[in-house]
């Protein structure tokens, strides 16, 4: 049980780290896709099948696609320019900060009295999930729907070409 978790966690963390370190942007995105798939595998391990499928559908099917599209639309050169000293200093600072955060979090995790009940959560059926979404969480669902609609419209407005073709605007 824990071994499976360890493998999944190592694969996820490894590919995430590789993605963050990589020079090639597109390779980074492919590594991130692996890492998201790893998170989906973690959900499967934890018995949340529905969430795992949703994770694959949205992260692998949509977000990585959008990211790839953004990369291709904003392509200047294959790799980033070599980091200037300022960037290197910032990277070191960032890693130190992240390590600090990780240390604090890990210390907290290790020293908190986490109440673990003996029984695992019962696997929720999709039907139950649907009733919950439409019942107790209907308002939240509505809000998320509105948020997604607005985000979609906003994205279209932002990404749409600002200089619309004016009449008589011959190239």
């Amino acid at each position, binding site marked *: 049980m824990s071994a499976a978790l360890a493998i999944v966690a190592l694969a996820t963390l490894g590919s995430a780290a590789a993605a963050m370190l990589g020079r090639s942007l597109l390779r980074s995105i492919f590594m991130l896709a692996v890492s998201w798939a790893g998170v989906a595998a973690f959900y499967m391990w934890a018995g949340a099948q529905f969430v795992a499928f949703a994770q694959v559908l949205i992260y692998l099917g949509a977000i990585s696609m959008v990211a790839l599209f953004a990369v291709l639309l904003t392509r200047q050169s294959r790799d980033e320019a070599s980091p200037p000293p300022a960037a290197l200093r910032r990277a070191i600072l960032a890693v130190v900060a992240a390590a600090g955060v990780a240390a604090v979090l890990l210390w907290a995790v290790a020293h908190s009295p986490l109440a673990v009940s003996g029984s695992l959560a019962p696997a929720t059926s999709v039907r139950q999930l649907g009733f919950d*979404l439409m019942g107790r969480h209907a308002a939240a669902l509505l809000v998320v729907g509105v948020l997604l609609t607005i985000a979609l419209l906003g994205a279209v407005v932002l990404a749409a070409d600002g200089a619309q073709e004016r009449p008589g605007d011959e190239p």
Partner: protein
Amino acid sequence: MNALQLCLAFSSLLFAVGLAGALARSNAIIVLLGLELMLNAANINFIAFWRFSPSSAPATGVIFVLFSIAVAAAEAAVGMALVIAIYRHQKTIRLPDATDLKG
């Protein structure tokens, strides 16, 4: 260390990796994807707590993750649209270069 703590450690490390990427890289797309990683780490926490400490509302953790994924999708869409808009004005997606408010 029990299973819950393992899961939480996993999510903390993933969060740190995402944070390091978001802070260190200058490429706007990688920064956004680092943010996505951090969101994923949070989702892992939800699932871990849902899994190992059953509460009276059995599906709450799962539903929260679903909402979180939806928000992440919206964030990614808007973020990438912003990146493209910035690129159109500044011809670069390196964040240190995108310092002008007026494009």
